[in-house]
């Protein structure tokens, strides 16, 4: 770790712009891919991945490289990493409720478990993390605490995103009270509301 920091400083000193690996973390259905698509469309004109109501739609890390964000007088080059949602349980029968056959549901569940493992392994390799939470739901869950705890243990900057503020029942203050140690940005990845605040937060906190 100290060597990586020294190398980063060295590159910064000699003017080589560092590419920030920005990981989008959170539980399933928090709106990670919707937000990733919004960011990617804003700065590259292309989406990152597919969105659906069915949990665990993202089952592999979706990458968009060299996304150049210009905000607040700063230019940030980042690799956008849309992670599979992290969960402690995956039940194939839940997918069948969305119309999947038993065989397809089991395959989806198998892929989803691999996706969770991949997302956890990537915790070692992101430079900055957005932890996305559905602002209509209780944020004080073990999954959210585990994600944030692991990022803190690795000294990785965390920006918490209170997403879905467009929905009735949204309560972003709940999230601020649950995690007062990190900046919280209120957005709607779907409508784009307040997404500029998110870009400013990334410019301020990313390393």
């Amino acid at each position, binding site marked *: 770790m100290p060597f990586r920091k020294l190398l980063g400083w060295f590159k910064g000193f000699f003017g080589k712009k560092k590419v920030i690996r920005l990981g989008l973390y959170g539980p399933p259905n928090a709106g990670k891919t919707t937000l990733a698509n919004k960011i990617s469309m804003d700065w590259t004109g292309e989406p990152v991945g597919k969105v659906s109501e069915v949990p665990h739609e993202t089952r592999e890390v979706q990458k968009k490289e060299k996304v150049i964000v210009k905000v607040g007088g700063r230019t940030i080059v980042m690799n956008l990493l849309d992670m599979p949602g992290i969960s402690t349980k995956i039940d194939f029968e839940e997918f069948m409720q969305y119309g999947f056959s038993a065989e397809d549901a089991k395959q989806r569940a198998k892929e989803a478990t691999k996706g969770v493992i991949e997302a*956890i392994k990537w915790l070692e390799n992101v430079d900055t993390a957005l932890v996305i939470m559905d602002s209509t739901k209780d944020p004080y869950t073990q999954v959210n605490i585990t994600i944030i705890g692991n990022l803190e243990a690795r000294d990785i900057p965390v920006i918490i995103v209170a997403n879905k503020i467009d929905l009735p029942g949204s309560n972003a203050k709940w999230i601020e009270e649950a995690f007062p140690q990190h900046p919280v940005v209120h957005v709607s990845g779907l409508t784009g509301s307040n997404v500029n605040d998110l870009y400013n937060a990334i410019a301020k906190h990313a390393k």
Partner: protein
Amino acid sequence: MKYILDKVRENKILVMEESLSSTEEAKLIEETMRSISEKFSGIEVSTLREKSDSGIREKIIKLLGGRTGGLTVIGPSKLIKQIKKEPKRISVLADGNSMD
């Protein structure tokens, strides 16, 4: 981890008088994912830490192989309907019965 998952897969709910670290929690999730099958769909887990585990006292205790207190509840997700977590309390709803 193996002991914990073996017990949970036997349909048992474990209550441990110690908290898992964030790294251990992530490892538990990883191992749970590897264990998921048609018969075992995962776990519900909640950890309470007594206080910050970054103080000097806590570091010395851990260095000597000890634990710094706390509480962890882990059970099969099919048995535990809900775990509600608050800063100083865990509430478990298991198969129609609730306990704090």
